[in-house]
């Protein structure tokens, strides 16, 4: 049978003007590495689930993408990660949401699918399940990157400014009593 694979690393306001040549080259190289890693698994006869997991692991381990290492910060300056996986043969599925200590959340999603009777686990319970399954666990600071911290600083500044602006609009006649 034919084999094939496709991957994505996120969508959004991505233009040539917003990236240096070096940054673009880094993204292209990592995307190629990830898709080729997944494809190699398919060539070896591995399942589509294995190929998906392998390709995603490469991107989760890269600081370039918003998943795993390099994930964005929450308002409280930590990282909360989500992942899911689905098997087209059986429509079995597994997912984790709001996890904070699992190095590769896609591995936890697969463990939920294959090692539990559930489809979705969340928060500290999902972290505990992953630990019991022997998955790689990390301190939440493992996911920190300077680039994402700077993005959080900018986002907070903008949100606070907008909050002030909307409050000012509501109370523009405050001096009237």
């Amino acid at each position: 049978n034919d084999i094939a694979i496709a991957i994505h690393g996120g969508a959004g306001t991505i233009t040539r003007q917003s990236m240096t040549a070096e940054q673009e080259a880094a993204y292209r190289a990592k995307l190629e590495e990830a898709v080729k890693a997944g494809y190699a698994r398919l060539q070896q006869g591995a399942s589509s689930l294995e190929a998906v997991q392998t390709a995603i692991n490469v991107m989760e381990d890269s600081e370039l993408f918003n998943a795993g290492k390099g994930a964005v910060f929450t308002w409280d300056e930590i990282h909360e990660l989500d992942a899911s996986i689905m098997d087209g043969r059986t429509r079995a599925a597994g997912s984790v949401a709001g996890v904070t200590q699992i190095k590769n959340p896609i591995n936890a999603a697969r463990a939920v699918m294959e090692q539990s009777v559930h489809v979705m686990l969340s928060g500290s319970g999902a972290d505990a399940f992953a630990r019991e399954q022997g998955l790689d666990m990390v301190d939440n600071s493992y996911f920190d990157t300077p680039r994402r911290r700077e993005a959080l600083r900018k986002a907070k500044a903008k949100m606070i400014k907008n909050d002030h602006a909307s409050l000012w609009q509501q109370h523009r006649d405050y001096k009237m009593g």
Partner: protein
Amino acid sequence: TVGAVALDKQGNLAAGTSTGGMTAKRWGRIGDAPIIGAGTFADNTSCAVSATGHGEYFIRYQVAADICARVKYQGKTIEQAGNEVINGVLNADAGEGGVIILDSKGNISMPFNSEGMYRASIDKNGKVSVQIYR
């Protein structure tokens, strides 16, 4: 957000998605990535989908499952179904993002309505493609 869809030698499809969510999110906000049918879906009788974008829209429109349903029940190609959902349904409500789709014959489609989407594929002929912009 990152994701992958694959077709193996046994003819089985799979899809997966992993994300850090959105910057400065609060109150335990969850997007579409862990929601089966919204950000991820796979069914050998239709297709496999992984999504990336504004999660609240992808949840409400059940984007991944909707694409596969159009393939399964309306007999549409993945290109038609993906285009209808991403550039039609989603676009009409200002939802932004994209998907990667793979069917059981090895056809690949990667529609998006944002300015760019990091994406790569190796098709059934072994052709490698890596793209970022439109």
